[in-house]
């Protein structure tokens, strides 16, 4: 006689383990909301109006455990003000993927801001991002810097990104800050864009018009430290592959950067003549 009890018990255990009947993986239901707004509310008063220090990373995709491990390393960094993630915190734009990244980042002792990446905008990802993080374009002022974080995923938004009018307005009024820092997913110098949209020419005009201290972007595989019209352009590289993140220091409009992983950091100044040396995290 085949006993029913073990099967029933196993199934009941399974049901209780799942704890829910998730109706669809394609939905936008998330258990946290407006995390970028929450992050801006958590910002502390800068230690110095002129000098700030933040971590930047991007393209973590499905490396949720590695992101969680990086958070532990980031939490040991002294005098850190906040973290910015330059997008692609998911692979398929699924709500569950978003929530795993949010879960990993929730361990940070400093606020974290997340920009939307192109992978975050497929499937139902746009709705998930809006619910979980808030508007696609947002800004916050910290000390002498205004961080202008914007959606640059032209292909996924059918030319609706970047919102040029919003960007111009944000940069025209720095709200008392001296410098702007652009944080976005695509490389403004060479974005993936709809034919004829000429986003790069638009960004170029912004650089030549407004006091922009730094561009931070993701999307491309390799870490790269460059300049575009004398403005430092920090390409973060794909965290999923490298497990690396950057510590960026801004002081009087000057930029220095340390490339870090779980084992330590490699200091690289954006002033080319400065030498490179090893420092502990």
């Amino acid at each position: 006689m085949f006993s029913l009890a073990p099967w029933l018990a196993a199934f009941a255990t399974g049901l209780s383990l799942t704890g829910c009947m998730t109706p669809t993986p394609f939905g936008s239901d998330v258990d946290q909301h407006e995390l970028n707004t929450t992050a801006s509310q958590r910002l502390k008063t800068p230690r110095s109006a002129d000098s700030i220090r933040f971590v930047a990373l991007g393209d973590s995709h499905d490396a949720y455990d590695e992101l969680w491990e990086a958070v532990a390393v980031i939490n040991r960094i002294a005098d850190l003000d906040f973290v910015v993630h330059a997008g692609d915190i998911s692979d398929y734009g699924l709500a569950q993927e978003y929530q795993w990244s949010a879960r990993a980042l929730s361990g940070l002792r400093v606020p974290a801001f997340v920009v939307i990446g192109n992978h975050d905008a497929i499937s139902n990802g746009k709705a998930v991002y809006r619910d979980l993080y808030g508007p696609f374009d947002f800004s916050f002022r910290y000390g002498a810097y205004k961080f202008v974080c914007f959606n640059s995923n032209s292909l996924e938004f059918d030319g609706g990104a970047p919102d040029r009018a919003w960007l111009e307005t944000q940069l025209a009024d720095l709200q008392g800050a001296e410098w702007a820092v652009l944080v976005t997913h695509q490389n403004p110098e060479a974005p993936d864009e709809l034919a004829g949209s000429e986003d790069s020419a638009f960004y170029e005009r912004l650089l030549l018009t407004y006091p922009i201290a730094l561009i931070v972007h993701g999307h491309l595989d390799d870490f790269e430290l460059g300049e575009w019209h004398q403005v430092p352009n920090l390409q973060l590289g794909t965290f999923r592959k490298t497990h690396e993140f950057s510590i960026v220091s801004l002081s009087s409009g000057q930029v220095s950067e340390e490339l870090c992983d779980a084992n330590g950091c490699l200091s690289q100044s954006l002033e080319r003549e400065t030498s490179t040396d090893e420092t502990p995290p």
Partner: protein
Amino acid sequence: MRRRLSLRILAALLAMTTAAGAERRTAPASPTDPLGPWVPDFAKLQSGGFSGTFTVGVGYAPLHDLLNVAVLYGYVPAALGGSVHSLHFTLQVRPLSFSSHGVRWLPAYAGLGALCTWGADYFLVPPDRYPDDYYPPNACHASAHVGVELQWLPRRGLARAHGLYAELTTIDTLIIDYFQNPRVTAPADVISSSIGYRLAL
């Protein structure tokens, strides 16, 4: 020791399969397919299991219900994280069943499927505006499920069985993420339970 245990498990499985076959052979005689080959062999109502909050489906049960092939349409209302429409194509193997006193018990079955949805940002082949290999297909995901079912077998009428079933379902990308990220993910993140009613005709 391990070999002896494996042989015992194999023997038990063979015995169960044989018993299941015997159950089928001794089931009350009825026309093989009284409604004709084009009328589905069963219809389903379901909730959960990644298929939708409200799901309806139909399917065929060839080889005396050993296999079930079904398509389910599911809907998730906007208030519950939608509005999402989906189609779930499933192939189920039901090797174990035990009947007694008008009740049939399927203690375990398993299946694979394709869970598909549609919308502006879903595609099987990325639109032309994207570079080659920019994205993998995201409109369909492979799925897998296991379940149990309890059927009541009426003596007369059109219905051959009224079944209540419960299943656990997962999809490809989530279960892969689960195994690759054991620290951040949890079983409840990647498995969705469902309950349903199955009317066999």
